[in-house]
């Protein structure tokens, strides 16, 4: 009432003034609104975001949820992860300022462990959420099944990553939808990695068949498909020493991928993206004027740039003159003298290692070569590496199959698979002598074939030989000084232990006095 009155009076007051009149008009509208306001509701209706209840109703919406489950991979697959998996092994070392390289880590100083822990579980949470949403979504079963399977494969990947990195970790599949669930999950302590893997194996066995049985390079968008599912299944089964399960999974892969002959070695350099042999690659891209989704792994895989396009004294025009090179990942003497010798005739050598380029020898390859063109990022700007990073590829699966048959004491089959890889590399066919030598040869072959593919430390830990072999063969004194058997797994960051109210622990580190 008073408002209406005020309006009229004010209008009278300013009638002569045009500007004021304009303002009065606005005021008038405001006054009317104000009257409406009194009857306004204070209920809250979101206008610019969605929630799990009202979203995830269609296939496209579910795919948008699945897309998110890949996001943490971008943060994991960096040069630090490369150091953590390859640079602290018998194959390579790196005199880097990144202290993960000398295992100067502890629960209180988890270094890259913090990132791996956070990103790994972020992936798990995203997967749990979208798996739950997919189950509830009102879409046909045949549409739903592959979507569900993709979520389950991604979740299995993250748990494989977490258990391989940290050992026993909390395992849950529940969607953290509200504070009550969150509180419950917060109190989970370490859980048996073996049981976790067994659960995942069963789940994968149920769901992977629901995916189209095709190569990953044939999957639209190079998403995680059946190939990735079988591969993870095999990896999990190998950790649990369920060789038959692993064997069957690799058989499924073999059905999809067929003979290794169709996959040339020349495809292997990382500049070739989504090669047919790939089972999974983390996608990166660098375009000067366009999209830049990059990692920085190549910055530790190239010869030191002196100036312009001169790299360790050699002109390499392809590498360009704007790359930033950091302290490089270098092979240990053991690797180049014993595992992959320069004169071994291995066809992988010119790709994997570099003593020279275009016939010109690098300055500082007296004791060891640089990593070869397989790892280089061409025309890199600063440290922006746009190469895809290989997670798994078919040759890995074949070597796994060789291991499976070796463990199942089927020498012929084991050697048949081992020789598939050796044949492509131009190495002589292996012949059986005894089981130990076969095991050793498979281990060395994995070292050669998968050099720099984020695998070595996991393999060594799985075989139980990581500490001894790394200690024996590393050329890096700081690493040798620092490393302890407990370093086979990263510690759970101390802050996480505290935040879990000490439900988590780092007993192995406490044992060695490295809290």
């Amino acid at each position, binding site marked *: 009432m*008073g*408002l209406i009155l*005020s*309006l009229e*009076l*004010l209008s009278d*007051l300013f009638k002569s003034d045009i500007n*004021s009149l304009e303002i009065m008009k*606005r*005021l008038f509208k*405001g006054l009317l609104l*104000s009257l409406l*306001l*009194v009857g*306004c*509701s204070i209920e*809250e209706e979101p*206008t610019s*975001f*969605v*929630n799990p209840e009202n979203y*995830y109703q269609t296939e496209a*919406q579910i795919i*948008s*949820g699945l*897309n*998110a489950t890949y996001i943490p991979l*971008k943060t994991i697959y960096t040069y630090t992860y490369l150091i953590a998996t390859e640079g602290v092994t018998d194959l390579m070392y790196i005199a880097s*300022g990144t*202290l993960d390289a000398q295992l*100067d880590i502890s629960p*209180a*100083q988890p270094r890259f462990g913090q990132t791996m822990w956070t990103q790994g579980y*972020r992936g798990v*949470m995203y997967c749990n959420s979208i798996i739950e949403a997919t189950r509830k979504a009102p879409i046909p079963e045949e549409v739903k099944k592959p979507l569900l399977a993709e979520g389950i494969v991604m979740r299995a990947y993250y748990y494989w990553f977490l258990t391989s990195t940290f050992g026993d970790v*909390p395992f849950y599949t529940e969607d*953290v*939808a*509200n*504070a009550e669930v*969150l509180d419950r*999950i917060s109190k989970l302590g370490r859980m048996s990695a073996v049981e976790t893997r067994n659960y995942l194996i069963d789940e994968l066995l149920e769901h992977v068949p629901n995916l189209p049985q095709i190569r990953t390079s044939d999957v*639209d*968008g190079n998403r995680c498909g059946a190939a990735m599912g079988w591969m993870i299944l095999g990896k999990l089964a190998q950790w649990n020493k369920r060789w038959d399960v692993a064997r069957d999974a690799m058989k499924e892969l073999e059905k999809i991928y067929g003979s290794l002959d169709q996959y040339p070695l020349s495809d292997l350099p990382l500049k070739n993206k989504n090669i047919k042999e790939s089972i999974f690659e983390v*996608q*990166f*891209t660098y375009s*000067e*004027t*366009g*999209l830049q*989704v990059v990692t920085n792994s190549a910055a530790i895989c190239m010869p030191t740039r002196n100036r312009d396009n001169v790299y360790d004294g050699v002109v390499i025009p392809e590498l360009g003159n*704007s790359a930033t090179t950091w302290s490089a990942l270098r092979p240990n003497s053991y690797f180049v003298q014993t595992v992959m010798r320069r004169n071994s005739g291995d066809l992988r050598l010119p790709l994997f290692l570099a003593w020279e380029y275009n016939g010109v020898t690098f300055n500082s390859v007296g004791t060891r070569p640089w990593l070869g063109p397989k790892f280089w990022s061409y025309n890199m*700007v*600063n440290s922006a590496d746009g190469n895809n990073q290989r997670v798994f590829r078919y040759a890995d699966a074949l070597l796994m199959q060789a291991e499976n048959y070796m463990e199942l004491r089927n020498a012929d089959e084991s050697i048949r698979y081992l020789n598939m890889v050796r044949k492509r590399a131009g190495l002589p066919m292996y012949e059986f002598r005894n089981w130990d030598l076969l095991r050793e040869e498979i281990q060395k072959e994995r070292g050669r074939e998968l050099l720099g593919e984020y695998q070595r430390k996991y393999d060594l830990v799985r075989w139980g030989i990581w500490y001894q072999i790394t200690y024996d063969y590393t050329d890096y004194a700081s690493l040798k000084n620092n490393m302890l058997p407990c370093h086979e797994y990263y510690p759970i960051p*101390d802050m996480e232990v505290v*935040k*879990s109210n000490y439900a*988590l622990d780092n007993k192995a580190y406490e044992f060695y*006095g490295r809290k």
Partner: protein
Amino acid sequence: MKKIRLRYKFPNNLIEPKLLFVMKLTWILLLVSVLQVNASIFAQKITLQRSDATLESVLKEIQHKSGLSIFYADELILNRPKISVNYEKEEVEKILTEILSKYDLDFKKHKNSVVVVKKTKPSPIVSLKESREDEPFIQEIIIRGKVKDKDGNPLSGVTIRENTLKSLAVSDNEGNFTIKVSQIPTTVIFNMLGYESLEKRITTTRELEVVLAETVAEVDEVVVIGYGEVKKKDLTGSVVNVKMDEIKDAPVVSVDLALQGRVPGADIMASTGEPGAPASIRIRGTRSITATNEPLIVVDGVIDGISNLSDINIADIESVSVLKDASATAIYGSRGSNGVIIITTKQGKRGKDQINLKSTFGVSQLPRKLDLMDASQYAQYRNDYALFTSADPYGSINLNSPLSDYPYPDPLSLGKGTDWVDEITRLAPYHTHNLSGSGGNERGNYFVSLSYDNTEGIIERSGLSRITGRVNIDYKLFPWMKVGWKYNITKRDEDQNLVTIGGTNWWNGAIYLNPMIKVYDNFNDLWYSGQTFNSPRAILDMGVIRNLKRDGSTNTGYVEIEPVRNLKINSQLTYYNYSQHTFRFEPSTLPAKAPNEGALAYRGEYSENNLMSQNTLNYTKNFDKHHIDFTLGFIGQKVWSDNLTLQGDGYQSDAILWNNMNAIPDKENYTATSNNNNKTSMSFLARANYHFKNRYYITVTGRRDGASNFAANNKWAFFPSGALKWTVSEESFMKNIKWIDELALRTSAGRTGNDGISSYRSLAALASTTSGYLFNGSQPVAFYPSRLASDKLSWEKTDMYNLAADISLFNRRVNITVEGYLSYTKDLLLDVQTPTQTGFSTRFANVGKTSNRGVEFSIETRNIEKPNFEWSSSFSISHNRQMVDDIGHYDFVNVYGSYGNNSYMMYGYIKGYPLNALWGFQYAGTWKNQDEIDRNKITKSYVSASASQYQPGSARYIDVNHDGVFNENDQVYLGNADPFIYGGLQNNFRYKNLTLNVFVNYSLGGKIYNIAEQWLGNGGYITNQYAYQLNAWHPIRNPNSDLPRAGSTDNIASDRMVHDASYLRIKTVAVGYNFDLSKVTKNKLKSLQLGLAGENLYVWKKYNGFDPDVSSQSSTSTLRRVDIGAYPKPRTVVGSIQIRY
């Protein structure tokens, strides 16, 4: 000096302002002696029967019965012999004449009032009717003159009389007066409510010029409180009324910076020294952890009517009230717990139209530098680093190596090198211009102003320009109705900082950069193995733009009606519109960009609207000795905002800036965001005041708030408060204690809230991104959970208790206020850290309790009051202690952690410790030799951060639990960031027309981390170092040093980096001189005022950073005195000129 106070008496049933008005009018008319007799009122007949009554009570009764207003000077009426009267239906005029003549008194009348004067002639009745200026029996000595205030404004309505009491005059609208005196020399006395009375000896008939000083602590000072105003003496809550006089000359853009140290209980600090940066204000401490701790700002009764205080031109401000206790703030309900600052803008005053023009010019500069290494010093340090490192290319250097093997064989030849701080800072000009006009008559008044400020930043290419305009109009349409309109417009144009002096950006912050890098070089060799980077100079020179334009306008219309006497209904409607336009550009030519990378352009558009309707009803009633008033109100508010941003990367032309964003080479490189936010709230409020004989007061308030942002199960909140006051000095037993003018005790209790839940915060949400994972070479949208639902979220509640005393002594020349308070906050909204195994790193919940307790003391004195010299002072001192009483089931909440992978808590909450506690390790010097290290393996006295730190020269820390392990168990409490006491001292001097104001503020006892020392003083090898690192450990040169050796950086924050944050600052010095131009210019111009002011002139401190008075984390609300490379506060000196017309 005997003070004569002219008092007016009035019937109880009339309200005061009306009376004042009548009184003034009376005098004006008296002056010109146009005596129009209102026959009817003086002819009315009343009955009056009293025996043995005082003259005062008799006059009161006449006043009451006749409706006449009777004015008199106390000394004429008080303490006169008693009288008995008996009139039966007699004319008022006759009664008055008869009674007064018995006392040798007379009266002059006009309309409805009379003024009692000393009888000047034998027959008053006759003379009244024939009175003329030239009364024959008075000696004709006429004195003319003019009365002004100290700013040169004419004062109308000043009574002027001869000390013989024979003659009386009143100044007119222009301040002019004419008085007839009986003889010369004589003394005349000038009196005016609100001003000091003045005696002047007159020896000649020359024209007089009189300046009256305002009374500093006037009983009738009116203080603005929430939804109303009260006389200061009737105030029951804790409200500080800031004197605008003292701060109006401070060369700052927003008023909050000028309030620092002046309001007891308000801890105000600059968030940064960047032009236009708002201050961070804490009233009675910090209580909330994630919700805001900034007080509610109310401008002319409007909440959320400005975006920040820089929207208001200081010159437009009439008064600032700071509401501190629950009794004062509970009326603001869920917004009140952080205190309330009420700003009232100027209204036109009745009288001649005034025009005021003021211009200020000045400069600011970086007040001091850090003691960092120069190039030759740093080269020596790098040589040491080369000795200690085993990394290439220095691996082969050892103690026996010749200097020529070191990377810098001749460090001294490098000289000073580049001083990066000098390279980016400058002497920055400042100017501001202000034009205002005001005036009014009985029916209406107006105030208009226009101002322009231009404050250049001390960092190159930063600065703020601002235009503000204001129109305030009030108009009385009918005696019972008033309408008004207030309009404010603000346009700000800000060039934000492009480069930083400090900060945590160790790779390009000026203090961190290697002094050996040449100014125009763009290669940072310390960054990893060296990398091209955008040097600060390149960023400044290459055309990077970060511009923010902000426009705000407020329209408030109101109507106030008084349908029956004492009942006022006010309806106010406000529409506030704010928009923000962001422009950013990074050209393709930046050195660190790839050749074809292209330019980056960004545009942001944000608009916010606030529509608020406020309706209040106020009723006041006095009966006998009782006074009661109450206020009821309803407020509805709707706030909505829209945001749109677009960023594109890769533009191939630097010329078009952001003006053709579709010219993008690849559409993948767009990032667009848009969102909308709505909030609706409703409030009902009520307040009742009662007092008995101005002695016993009680106030009760309540507010009920409902808001859309509250969670579904908690939509409505109620906030009550109550206060009691006892004015002891009004008691009869105090009447004889002359030196105490006022002694009052107050106490209050109440609950207030903090609705720090932003809209939709209680609802679950999925976030989306298109910068996620690549599929088929593009980044399709990805949705992921970003927030959990929490339908129990509630506002924070603060219960506050207050006890205070107001003391006024020696004719109110000394005014003291002492207050003590306790406040308890519960249901703290906390972003509680959760184990990241849940996939979430934090969750939002009502967890935790904090408490604040403190005392405040302020004293204002008028030390010297002579016509030509005045000196007044005010001093305040406050103490506040804030504690974390509960943080749920968490051991600690890490609010700010150290740099590096392993972020140990530097600032954080632990139950039972101060809210602003500092945490860290206890530095124990360096390992001196291998022997010490080996021995320690058994004693476990010390511990180093990592295995590689167990080397001579590396830092070690006390192993608190002797477990040989370095972890958070070795962290200890390192002190409290809050000062033990803080406050300020203001001294105002006036000698004739020269004024000098000096303001000093201080803060004692707080601690501060020098966060930059994590890089600059930690043996680091990636940044420059503090010069003290030249004394770092070295096996030959300095084997006993406890400073960590070059290159031994361990990223550990320890007590070595904690400093005393105490300071004493000469904050403002202002000198002014006032020329009276009225004579020279024949009243065309009134006065010319010249001023010189300095801000932040000098600071005494122990801190080795720029300034301990920084709070770069003010946006995260809780942390105080955290120096994360805040833009240092500049020293500013300005000169001003002001002309009044």
